[in-house]
Structure formats: C-alpha cells, structure tokens
C-alpha cells in the first residue's frame, strides 16, 4: 500500500494559536484506516487537543504498539518523532524513552488487543511505575488488524463476525488502571469529541501515569447489535460522570458553572480542570469510590465515561528514581565518565 502525502498548503485564514501554528500543523499523513473507524475520530481529537493546548508539536513523542489503533500516530503530529514498536510492548519503550528525556511529552497509543491481551503485563507495570505519559487505549473490543478475533476486552457472551461466542470475561481497563495506581483515569468515546478533547488535554497536562480508555467502534468487525463497543450501544448506555474543561493558567477562570455542580482541580503544570458534573455528585479524587462506582454501573450495563480519578499532585518515575533535572540524554562526557584518576583508585581497591 502506498499513499500520497497531504499537500501542506496553509489556508491564509486558518486560525493560529499563540505559537503561530494552525490546526494543520498538528496533523499527520492521510489515514489508511477504514472509513468510519472510531480510531480516526480519536486522532482528530488528539490533533484538536494539542492545538488547543498550544504544544510545540515536535516536543511530543508518540509511541504505539501494533494494530490499526497503533498505526494512527502516523496520522497526527507529523513533525513529531513517532515509534511504531512491537505488539504489546509500547509501554516499555515509552518508559525507556521517558527515562532518556524527561522534558518531552509522551503520548502512548494502543489498542485493546495490544494493551489488554498480549501487552497486559507491560500496561500494568508502566502504570504502576508512574511513567509520566498519556496512555490512550483505542478500545474496539476486537482485533481489527488481524480481522476480527476477540481481544481481552471483548464482552463475555459476545459473538464474533464469524459466529464464534466469547467465553472469557472481558477486562475493564479503567478498573485495572485504577488498581495499578494510575493517577489520572478516564473513559470516553470516540464519537464524543466534546468530552474526549478536554480529557486528552487534561491527560497530557497531567504529571504521572494518565490513562484514557476510549471506546472506539470497529466498523468492520465490531459495530453490530449487542456489542458493548458499538456506536449505538455506547450512545444508549453512556453514563457520563462529568464534563471537563481544561483551563490553561493564563486563561481567565471560567465562571459559567453553577455552584454545587462543578469542582476545579489544579494540575502540576498550573492548568485547571474544571469538572461540570452532569450525572450526580461525583468526587474524582477518591480511588476506592471510583472503583465502586464503576462496578455498580457496570452491573447495570452502563458504561461510565468521564474523568473517574485524578491525583493532581502525583509524582512520576523520575521522582521515584531520583534522576537529575536535566534530561539523561543531554549529559556530557564530564558528567558521565569518571576518568583515569578514579579508575586508578578502583584498581588500587582491587589488589
């Protein structure tokens, strides 16, 4: 398969952000996914979020595993470095990249097969370590790229396109992320841009392991009646706990919310999450309650979306390891190589 690069013509009237970039500058190559694939909507949301956050595109490193979902980093942030790694192992590569340069923003994109099946272990351990990243699973409940086999998030009892019944319990990635200690946990839906874009912005601004489980219907293999990852099912059973705005420090604080229905959370970088609760009084600062809430709703067949948990003062892996403030990949010889005199001392101690 070959494809043509998008002409990089700037429309004179395209709005620019304060860095002088247009939304176009956050785009990538033309997608090769199926028309209507939920993953493309998520790419669009990522582009929108980065544009609105005014991130210098090249300061984002985007990493993925293998799958239709994992192909998408080619389709956004074309000036950024990207890494299509191996199936299920993006979390370790992202961890290493993050250790090498703590100054970049790390965006991991994966699929449900990539992260819940083959990569469940790496997913869990990267979260446990508190790697500073936004980790998005584009969850269609199926292996898209290998044509429709069940993944570990497929619903028990669901039927594949070929008529096979799934007997295994589906993994709820949000529940797992909560248990593994993620410090920002959200779920959204590829078709709900209003909810998804602010969540991505907040996740990118969060310091620590941020996770978004984004339901993303596969129009080829899993958008049929009865699938909990189909467009129709999610639209009907979506139980949104909150609506979110991310307010960057320099913006005036918004005032258009009713008292008692919103809370504001300040993140490490100074940005403010403004949560508009539309469902009921939901407190996103309590991990245990988040888990209970999730399970109670799940028992009723509801898919909870929104920001389920955030710890705005979380630390990350670098804090735990105690690394220097400078990126490790910028250290010079004098800082790294102890030299001949030190070696002579070591020799003397070995005689």
């Amino acid at each position: 398969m070959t494809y043509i690069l998008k002409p990089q013509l700037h429309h004179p009237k395209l709005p620019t952000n304060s860095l002088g970039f247009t939304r176009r500058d956050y785009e990538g190559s033309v997608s090769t996914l199926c028309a209507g694939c939920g993953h493309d909507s998520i790419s669009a949301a990522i582009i929108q979020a980065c544009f609105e956050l005014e991130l210098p595109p090249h300061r984002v490193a985007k990493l993925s595993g293998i799958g239709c979902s994992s192909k998408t980093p080619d389709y956004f942030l074309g000036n950024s470095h990207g890494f299509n790694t191996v199936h299920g192992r993006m979390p370790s590569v992202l961890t290493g990249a993050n250790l090498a340069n703590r100054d970049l923003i790390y965006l991991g994109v994966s699929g449900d097969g990539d992260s819940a099946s083959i990569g469940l272990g790496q997913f869990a351990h990267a979260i446990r370590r508190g790697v500073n990243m936004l980790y998005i699973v584009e969850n269609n409940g199926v292996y898209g790229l290998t044509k429709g086999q069940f993944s570990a998030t497929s619903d028990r009892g669901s039927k594949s396109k070929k008529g096979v019944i799934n007997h295994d319990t589906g993994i709820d990635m949000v529940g797992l992320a909560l248990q593994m200690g993620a410090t920002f946990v959200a779920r959204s839906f590829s078709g709900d841009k209003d909810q998804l874009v602010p969540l991505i912005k907040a996740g990118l601004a969060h310091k620590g392991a941020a996770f978004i489980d984004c339901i993303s219907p596969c129009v080829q293999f899993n958008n049929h009646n009865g699938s909990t990852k189909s467009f129709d099912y999610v639209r009907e059973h979506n139980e949104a706990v909150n609506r979110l705005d991310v307010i960057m420090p320099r913006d005036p604080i918004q005032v258009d919310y009713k008292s008692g229905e919103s809370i504001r959370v300040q993140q490490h970088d100074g940005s403010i999450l403004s949560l508009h609760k539309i469902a009921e009084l939901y407190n996103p600062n309590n991990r245990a309650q988040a888990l209970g809430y999730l399970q109670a709703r799940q028992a009723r067949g509801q898919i909870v979306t929104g920001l389920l948990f955030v710890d705005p003062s979380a630390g990350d892996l670098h804090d735990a390891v105690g690394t220097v403030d400078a990126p490790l990949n910028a250290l010079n010889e004098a800082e790294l190589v102890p030299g001949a005199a030190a070696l002579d001392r070591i020799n003397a101690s070995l005689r």
Partner: protein
Amino acid sequence: MPDSAEPRAVQAATAMKASVNDFVVKFANVNGSGSASANGLFARSVMRMGVPVAARNIFPSNIQGLPTWYEVRITEAGYLGRRGGVDLMVAMNPQTWDRDLAEIESGGFLVYDSTKPLGHSRDDITAIGVPLTAMCNEAYELPRERQLFKNTIYVGALAALLGIELAVIDALLADDFKGRDRLIKANVEALRMGHAYVLKHLGPLPLQVRRADAVGDRIYVEGNQAAALGAVYGGATVCAWYPITPSTSLVEAFTAYCQDLRLEPETGKARYAIIQAEDEIASIGIVVGAGWNGCRAFTATSGPGVSLMTEFIGLSYFAEIPAVIFDVQRGGPSTGMPTRTQQADILACAYAGHGDTKHPLLLPADPGECFEMGAQAFDLADRLQTTVFVMLDLDIGMNEWLTKPFVWDDARRLDRGKVLTHDDLEAGREFGRYLEVDGDGIPYRTYPGVHPTKGGYFTRGTSRNPYARYSEEGAVYVDNMERLLRKFDTARALVPAPVARPARRRTRDGVIYFGSTTPAMHEALEMLEAQGRHLDALRIRGFPFADAVYDFIAQHDRVYVIEQNRDAQLRTLIMTEGGVDASKLVAVLHYDGTPITARFIAGEIAQRLALGQPSTGQSEAAE
C-alpha cells in the same frame, strides 16, 4: 611429620606430591555454610604472598543446603585456566565425600574434619584430620558461631600446612572487617586455633606456598564487575534488567559504581536510571526506548533472557536503534544448568531476531577485556545504530580473575555516531533516516524533539523508504536490506580484531579459540609444544569476523576450533559467514558445565594429531 599420641591424624601414603607454588586446592562445602568468604580469604592470602591464583566457584542454584565447590589453582607460572585434577582436597561436605575423594590425584592430600571418623579406601593419598567440629564446640556457644568459625579455623590449618604467613591473612581480615574490631579479633583467634593445632600435631606438607613476585600490578576482579565498570565509563545512563544468574551481579555492580561515581555533586541526584523490569521483554523494550531517545542503555541477562528479548532485538536491527546486551552465558534453558558455565549462546545471539538479522558480538577473554569491551560496546552501538552483544560467561562473569589493571585515556571521547543536531538541520542538511549518505551503510539519525519542523520521522521496522515514509515496495525493501549488509561489513573493521599467537616452528596446524577458554588454551599450547606439537593460534574477539580469521584458516591445513558448547557454534558461524570447507575446521568441544581445562584441550588435540585425522570432538564425560 611429627608423631602424636592422638588417634591417627595423618594417614600417610607412600608417595606424596611435592610442589612449591604450583598445585590445585579444592574446597568441598555445603552451600550457605559461610565457606565462601573463608575460601576467598585463602585465595587472596596466597596472592598477597605474590603468587598468582586462579579461583573458581562451582556452586548450585540454591541458597542453602546443596554441595558447592571452590577450586584454587596456585600458579607462580601464571596459568589462570583450570589445569584439571586436584592435589589437595578440603572435604567439608559428607554428602559428596566419596566423589571428592575420588578426584584427588595419586600422591595428593585430603584435609577433613576428623571429629567423627570417616573411612576411605585410598592408600595412594595422604589424609590429614583436623577435629574442626570438636574444636568449635569447645570454643563457641552459639551454633552460628560454631559454623562460621569452623571455616576460619580450617583456613588457619591450611596456612600452617602450606606455609602461608599468618600476618598476611591478618592484614586481609583487617581490611575486610574494617571498623568492626570484635569481628577481626574473633577471626584472628579462630585462625590461630587452626594454625596451632597443625603446628602441634601435624606439621607442614610438601605442598608449599612461598613468597614470590609474580602478581605484579594485576588486579583481582570478577568479569561482571569489570563489565559494569565498563558500562559506567562507556557513558551508559539507562539500565533495565530482570534478575537471572549469572548476570545479576553485573547490574548490582553497576548500581554500586553509579552510586559512587554518578551522583550530581550539588544535588545528590542520579545521572543514571536503573529499572528492575517485570521481565526481559520489558528490559530490552526500555533499553530500545532509551536508545531511540539518545541515551546509552543496556541490559544484562543470560540465555533464557535473550530468548525473550528476541523480537525487540530484531526490531533494533531493522529500526536501527542502539542497544547493548551483556549476555553472561550459562548452560541451557531455565531448568538447565543456571550455575554452570558454557559458551552456548553464540548462534542465538549472532542471529537473534526474525527476518534476516545479524548482530555484532564482542568476546572478552578476561575481566580486563570485559571492562574495555563493556565501554566500547556503547560506542559501537551508537556508531552502528544496532544491538551489540558482549558475550561473557559464568566463568569470567562470576569468578574473580587476576587481570591487568583497568586503563582509561582521559583524551578519549564517546563516539555518539551519526546524529544530526538542531543546527545541522537548521543549516539545511538533508535528512533521510534510512538514507545511505557516506557509503558505509550507516544512515544519520535525529533525537526526538530536536527541531520544530525538520528531523521528525516515524520509526517502524521495515515497510518504509529511505525517508522513513511508508512503503511496501519490494525494491525499496531489498535496497534497505543491502544497505544493512554494507553496515554489517563496516562493523567488521570496528569490532575488536583477532589476536594471533604464532607457534615457535612453522606448522600447518592451527587453533581458534575465544573467551574464557583463553588461559587454558595458552597453557595447552605450551603442553603440546613440550610434546613437540606446534600449532598457530588465533583468538577471536569479535563478530563479524575480520578477514584475518579467514586468512588464518586459508594458511593452515587443519584448524581446531575450541568451544564450550555441544554444537560447535562458533565453527558453524565461521563456516556460514565465510564459506569455509567443513572438513578443515575440527571441533574440540567441552560442555559439561565446568570450565574447560588445559589438560582436556591438550589431550584432545594431541589425540587427533596422533591419529592424523579429524574427529568430530567430544566432551570428556567427567573430570
């Protein structure tokens, strides 16, 4: 020997071995009994007398209870390989009594705990009983003390038997237990207890250690520790690993050296990151991620870990990402011989991956080279943008070896390879991530985040053109694979060159060897020479093989290839990569998990030379 009224402490054989500074002592112990430090003390005391030693642990894969051995070769002549055979057995393990006794050479000696009578039927050895348990029970209250000091007491007894100066051991104890005066005193007393017993009841043996000046400025260090120090000097900043014998101590040593040498003075913060990953797949994933992002990163593992890392190693080859793997080889799979030594990962590492892949291997022969190659591996990985293996084995990695002191030239610079900077890009340098520019097969790379509009690219295994854009064109794929071959050819001149050791006489026979076989090989060559058998020798230190390796083979009628594995892996690699006629390369193989011996090599080669025809080569059944 003086007579005594005690029950027969000495059963003397008619013929006794006699030697000064040239004999083999072996300790048979129970794992976890605290014998390791006492045995190490013994070896170092000989060295402090100016006599070189070669000491090797032969230990089980558990923490407590199984038999464990420690073999110390005392060798003023400086033979650091295993000789084969035992002259003095310190038999402290009743479980292995029979086989330990059987190993003593005729005319040799047995030192044992004579508290309870232990029978044996060899009248060609001299048995020396010291009532260690009885002495301990009398001197100490606590069971732990009784056990620990028993070891020190036998060191004292050996000192008296072999003529090692007590003051030398005292000085070592003072170093080892610096600041813990009570421990020093207790050990010094225990030492004297054993020493006095021997002086009173027995007297010295005809095996003697005598002061010499044969150690020189050499240092005594484990290969793993040396390799770890090499990684520090090589500028490694990220280490990810998963515990596996015999590689674990490499990362432990790296950690200790970093804590000592790599903290930012003003803040005490770390100029390194060490991650104990959840498995070897994650370890190498972290290494690849860090390498992609411009750090020098490594992992240390053994065969089972290499198997798990294979997919990533393949990716590193195709995506051209620097990575360093220290493979400390051991025998077989996870349920194999985890605490025994082999050189059996050669093929697995040379070709690890899927699709057409091959990787540079560095083959250190002693801890000195572990340090040098440990540092060099990072330059090579950056220069070649690929995975580089440093192939240790348990023998080098986990035993202390006498080795030349480490040297470092402060003028030496880290070679970060072909990296385009922000200024290069800004100045308009063309950037194609997989573009051949210099004719050496090595493309230029950029670090993520380098420039707002130039230098970004999407990294994937294959399916891309020289500009890293998606392409499934067959011709594009083939071009890229040909370039990777050119790059591998470039590596040929960069990996350590082979070292030749010509025979004293002209000969048509040659021998090729590598790694931990080296000292035993050199001794075997001397033994063969004494028999009038002359062979030119070539030590291989790197893969891809230099032209000199094939020239050497061409110059000889027959070349013996000495390896510590069953399948003659290096021989296969030489043949595959260079199209050598199989009948020309004769495999000599030792793979029972113990380090190869000089006697074995000399015996195998002599036998084949006498027959005048090659055989396939077999390991000895037992030694």
